[in-house]
């Protein structure tokens, strides 16, 4: 802490006492103290106070450590706390399971979506349409207007093509898809290293909403959310550093 240039300030003096100066600055301070003996004396007193504090503090430690602070005890307490929590969670899960069972029994519209991981269709689409280096887009990135009108018509909703160029991603194009809930579409982008990031959009069967979620499926990671009209997913290779940023940007685009 302190500028490493400029006149010696209070910060430098404190940092000198605490031995938190870099060697160059330390030399500067030492030179300064040579010609300012009063300051040097003041700092020596401060350092002596610090040493006295340390000694006193050590004396304060004389009271023996209670058993409950031993790590074996802490772990034991922690375990019994988590067993209590686990019981609570289990109780909650039993209720949810019961509810699901009842719901499923009486539901006339049993779909198999309930048993699939969220946005599993987006991950499949990424594997099939985005992962191959050639990138099998149906309508390439130069025909944005055509792509937009086709996808919007297909989904029955206006939809923008997210601009991810500021992350260094190149828009390759997109295609119409059939999702497990109805019409869908995918926009495909390329990272500089050739890896693909895809933005997947689909209509929803039930108008559900959710916050931002993420899921890793093999080597593909998907970030997804549902806004009541459409479901969105941003997918990419799980080792890519850009997927998270892309997902954030896409979420802002579609807000």
């Amino acid at each position, binding site marked *: 802490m302190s500028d490493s240039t400029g006149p010696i300030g209070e*910060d430098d003096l404190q940092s000198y006492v605490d031995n938190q100066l870099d060697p160059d600055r330390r030399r500067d301070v030492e030179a300064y103290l040579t010609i300012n003996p009063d300051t040097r004396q003041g700092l020596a007193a401060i350092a002596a106070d610090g040493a006295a504090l340390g000694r006193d503090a050590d004396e304060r430690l004389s009271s023996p450590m209670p058993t409950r602070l031993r*790590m074996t005890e802490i772990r034991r307490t922690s375990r019994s706390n988590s067993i209590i929590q686990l019981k609570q969670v289990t109780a909650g899960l039993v209720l949810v399971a019961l509810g699901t069972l009842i719901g499923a029994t009486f539901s006339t519209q049993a779909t198999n979506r309930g048993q699939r991981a969220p946005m599993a269709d987006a991950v499949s689409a990424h594997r099939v349409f985005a992962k191959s280096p050639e990138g099998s887009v149906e309508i390439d990135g130069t025909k944005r207007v055509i792509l937009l009108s086709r996808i919007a018509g297909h989904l029955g909703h206006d939809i923008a093509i997210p601009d991810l160029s500021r992350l260094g991603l190149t828009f390759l194009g997109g295609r119409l898809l059939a999702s497990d809930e109805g019409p869908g579409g995918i926009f495909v982008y390329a990272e500089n290293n050739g890896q693909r990031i895809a933005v997947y959009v689909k209509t929803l069967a039930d108008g559900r909403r959710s916050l931002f979620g993420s899921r890793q499926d093999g080597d593909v990671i998907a970030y997804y959310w549902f806004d009541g009209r459409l479901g969105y997913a941003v997918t990419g290779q799980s080792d890519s550093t850009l997927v998270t940023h892309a997902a954030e940007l896409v979420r802002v685009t579609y807000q």
Partner: protein
Amino acid sequence: MFSRISDSELERHIPALRRFAWSLTRDHDQADDLVQDALLKAVSRWAQLRQTGSVRPWLFQILFNIFRAGRRKSRPDEIDMPTDTDRDHPIATGHLDDRIALRSALDGLLRLPEDQRVVLELVAIEGLTYDEVSRIVGVPLGTVMSRLSRGRSKLRELLDTPATGQLRRVK
């Protein structure tokens, strides 16, 4: 950092945590309660450590956060350490004669306003870096520095040892 923190690694820091907790609470039982809570939180949140880096400042931060949260709950009228850097806080007990009764540097430390005392203690006794203290206390580096500087000069006035020949009076 992906493996669990070992018990011996944590145990090494317990004396320092107790020391700090005592100075916050001034009560041995409460201090040990605080340390116990901090350790419980630490073992259940060890994964957090990946972002924080080293164990020692992380433990201090957990403990200090629990202390502050507990105080907010129990004494809603007396909350909040002053966070502004400019105001000069009065010394807790302001009689001149108190100086005579100071038995040790520690007595002096305990008379400092809490915001200065905490910073001084973390730096001078526990040997944490300014950056670490800034994170633990949750104030900018510049504030840490000014609290440290003011705390030290106030402590100096309180102790006013003949060694330096200073006879500045405490008001």
